[in-house]
Every structure is written in structure tokens, then in C-alpha cells.
């Protein structure tokens, strides 16, 4: 199987509210996969299902050929233990809309934390790698700063470096630029573009249509918990086929 992420009829409800109503999609290895849609359409929820921050209610979700959150034996599903879930999450990096950096640690310590605490890497090795990751996102000079001393764009780039420190095979971006001043969006997108060029598989929930068009390999438009339209970003964004897609794009473009 070549697909990095494969969703088959994925359903998710919060109480009586059904947020995902049967999602089918495939994300190939090395692909930049963009999810767009109005708020409340379920795109962030779907993203969170991929690393099991949310439990899927029905359907199957696979990452790198393995079922997310469960183990299948014959016809029966067994829930994975917390430690097994944590083990799988190591390979999936996630970047949040609100950055969620650890405020009591410096930028460097934020990036070092997971390799040292989760992988058991030596502090010296982790520090060196964290330093070069911060350099990669253009923040080598901010290593000793606390998140509160950084701008939003800088915080988000530290968050990307923190996720990369675990050397993931898949990166999830949950509206990474939505909480940023327009001026700062470019720096973060540059880092993401750079990451895409290095061959990382990326799933990006975004409102940045320009980024989706330039960098994206595939694009899915979601609304009301279903996939309305999907295809090549340039095709979908310039020539949408569905009425719903047309009306959404006419408002955001």
C-alpha cells in the first residue's frame, strides 16, 4: 500500500451532533494534501482523528497501512492502549492553530523536549539537532527566548521545528496561519513550502488558497461533514464543479 493516510467512510459525532458523515480519501506518500472548507465543516476534526486526538465512531482510518487507534484481529477490533497510541503519534507531527508551545520552556527547550523525553535521546545530541532545526526555520538567534517573547509567526515556526524534531513521516497542519497577523503569514508559509519540497507528506487544513494552489498536490473541499469536491488544487480553485464550492470560493478568493 502506497497511501500514507487512507480514510474509508469515517464518521465522527460529538454527542448527537454528527461532524463527519462518511469521509473517503487517500493521501499519497510525499503529497501535500490541502483541506479547505467553511468553519464547522469537520476538516479540523478529521485532522485530529488522524493522530487519534479524536476517536472515530465508524469507518476505518489507516496511517501508513496501520489502523488508527485500534488493532484488528479477525472481525474484532481491540482498542489500543495509551502507550501504543503514544508510540504511533511519534511518527505524526502536528502543528496547531494556536501554536501550543510550552510557555515555561525556551524555544530550544521546546524543540528538545520530545526527543529527550519520548525518544530518550541524549540532551547534547537533542540540543544540537534542535539548534539546526531552529536554523532551518530561520530562528537560530531566538533559541534562548521564551514563547512569550516571540511573535506569532516566530512561535508557529518554533512549533513546526518542535514537530519536526520527532522526525515524523507525516505532518498535520491545523490552520497554521489563521491566528497570525497577515504580515507574519508569509514566513510560516515559506517554511511549509520548504518542507513540502523536501518530500514530507503533509495534510494542511488552511484558508490560504494561494498556498494550496502553489504548493498543494491535491485539494479537498469539505462542507457539512462530507467531501464535496476533490482534485488538483489548480483545477478545483479555478474551475469548481459544485455550486457549494463555487459559492465558498467566491467569498474567500
Amino acid at each position, binding site marked *: 500500500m502506497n497511501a500514507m493516510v487512507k480514510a474509508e467512510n469515517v464518521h465522527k459525532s460529538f454527542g448527537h451532533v454528527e461532524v463527519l458523515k462518511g469521509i473517503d480519501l487517500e493521501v499519497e506518500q510525499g503529497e501535500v494534501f490541502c483541506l479547505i472548507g467553511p468553519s464547522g465543516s469537520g476538516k479540523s476534526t478529521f485532522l485530529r482523528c488522524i493522530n487519534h486526538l479524536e476517536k472515530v465512531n465508524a469507518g476505518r482510518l489507516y496511517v501508513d497501512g496501520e489502523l488508527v487507534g485500534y488493532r484488528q484481529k479477525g472481525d474484532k477490533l481491540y482498542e489500543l492502549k495509551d*502507550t501504543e497510541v503514544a508510540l504511533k*503519534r511519534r511518527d505524526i507531527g*502536528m502543528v*496547531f492553530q494556536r501554536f*501550543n508551545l510550552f510557555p515555561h520552556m525556551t524555544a530550544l527547550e521546546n524543540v528538545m523536549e520530545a526527543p529527550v523525553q*519520548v525518544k530518550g535521546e541524549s540532551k547534547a545530541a537533542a540540543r544540537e539537532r534542535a539548534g539546526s532545526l531552529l536554523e532551518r526555520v530561520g530562528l537560530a538567534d531566538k533559541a534562548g527566548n521564551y514563547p*512569550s517573547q516571540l511573535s506569532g509567526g516566530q512561535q508557529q515556526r518554533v512549533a513546526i521545528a518542535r514537530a519536526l524534531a520527532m522526525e515524523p513521516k507525516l505532518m498535520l497542519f491545523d490552520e497554521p496561519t489563521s491566528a497570525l497577523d497577515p504580515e507574519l503569514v508569509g514566513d510560516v508559509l515559506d517554511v511549509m513550502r520548504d518542507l513540502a519540497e523536501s518530500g514530507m507528506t503533509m495534510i494542511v487544513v488552511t484558508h490560504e488558497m494561494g498556498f494550496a494552489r502553489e504548493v498543494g498536490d491535491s485539494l479537498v473541499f469539505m462542507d457539512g461533514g462530507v467531501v464535496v469536491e476533490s482534485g488538483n488544487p489548480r483545477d478545483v480553485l479555478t474551475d469548481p464543479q459544485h455550486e457549494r464550492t463555487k459559492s465558498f470560493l467566491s467569498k474567500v478568493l
Partner: protein
Amino acid sequence: MTVDIDKKGPEDTPPQAPQAIKAVPVRHYGRYLSAFIALAALGAIVFAFAQGEINWDAIPEYFFDSRILGGVRETLLLTVCAMLIGVVGGILLAVMRLSKNPVTSSIAWFYIWFFRGTPVLVQLFVWFNLGFVFEYINLGPVYKDEWSDFMTPFLTALLGLGLNEAAYMAEICRAGLLAVDEGQTEAAHALGMSHSKTLRRVVLPQAMRVIVPPTGNEVINMLKTTSLVAAVQYYELLKNATDIGQSSGATVEVLFLAATWYLIMTSILSVGQYYLERYYARGSSRQLPPTPWQKVKANMLSLRRPEVAR
């Protein structure tokens, strides 16, 4: 700078600064009056005590008495040990209360309800009198003894104060844990950190900022509450002081003496709390106020600077 000004002619000199206003300030007669009343009341109290038959000399005489110093040591020991039980128990109870397991969370709720809802003096007496209920303590192969030998006054005081404190600390810790943004837990989990590691490395250090100030309060409270354990035959500062008072006849004087010692100890604890709060405030966006030592250093520098300029 001065050289530049000299080069320019008198016409080029910048316009004179506007003349400072010299006005008659508003007289706050109310302030004079309230200050006078407060001073008069204070004077009256001091005068009254000066009139009383207080043998002030007794205070310095017994201030460093070995029994008093021993009592201070016992008070501090009890405070530290009881707070240790309180903090560890409190964190445990807070985590239990916030857990998804309904049994552990109900038990924690019940514990807090019971220990917070009954007076600590009653709890002390209950621990003290448990010997009427149990004849022996029998922990299987580990430990076996007669109850009266096992339950020393120190253990009575420690359990009474510590277990009571745990109930209060549990609520303080719970508030601290809830104050940490959920995104922090999510980010830690997304990095592959386990529940316990997330709690230890990410949530607790941030919760400490909320937990430390009220905990400092609790320590100071505990230090004073230890005076209650005189009731269960534990010899700490107040008990030793009153004993001296009865044997020497300086009953009231030793109370002043004990009060002074309590003040000294609480003052030292307040200083410790100040520095602990600074430590856990690291990474916060607010600029920290300088420590007294930093202020002294800054003042020394600012005193020197005008001389250099001249």
C-alpha cells in the same frame, strides 16, 4: 553636546522650556484628621499596655531559652512534615478528582468533603483518642505494635494536620491543573508523550504558577495552626512557652514572646515564597519586579553614574 551649542549663536538656541507652574496645592484636611485619629488610637493602645503590669524584661530573658528554641524547632519540623503530607496528598487527590475513573474521583471528593468539613481540632482529638478504638496496630508481617506505642504525639499531630491540609491543597492543585490550557496537553500528546509525562513535564510546571501563591498562604497558616497541637500533648513553641509562663509567673509575657517568634518565622517564609513565585513565573509575559538585591545593585549603579557623567 555642550560643544555643539557653543558653536551656534544666541539666536539659534532652542526656545526656553516653559516655566514650571507654581500653584498652591490643595490642602487635604481630611487626611490630616484621619492621620491624627489613627495616631491617637495607636498612642492610646501603647499607653494602655505601658500602664499594664507587664514585666518586659522577661521577654529577652527567655527569648533564647533552650525550651523556646526547642519549641521553635519542633514547630518548624511539624510545619514542614505536615505540609509535605499536604502537598503530596493534595496533588494525588487533585489528580484523582480529575481522573476519568468515577470510583477514584468520588473517593477524592468524599475525602475533601470530610476533611474540609470538620474542624481540625476535632480531627486532632480523633487521632489522639483512636487508642480507645484500636488496641493494636497490625500491618501483617511489616509492623505490629500496641496502639499507644505506635501513635506518638508527633504522629498524632502530623496526621491530624497533614491529612487535613491535603484536603485544602487538593482544591488548590485542582484549580492549578484546570488553569493550564487544554492545548498544552494536546500538543504534548501529539508529540507522543504519555499521560504521566505530560502531567509531569508540561502541565504541573505551568500549574505551579497558580498553585504556589495560595500554597505559601497555606504554609504560613500551617505554621500558626501547629499551635493547636498543644492539645494533643505535643511540645511545640506555644506549649513550651506557656509552660515557662506558668512556672515563672510571666504568663502574658511569654505569649508576646511566642508571638514574636511566630512573626519572625512567617516573615522568613514570606521571603521564600516571593522567590519561589519568581522562579515559576519564568516565561510569563509580564516583566518581573526586581528582587530587593537587584534593587540595591541598581541603586548603587545609578548613584555612581552622575559622577561619571561629570
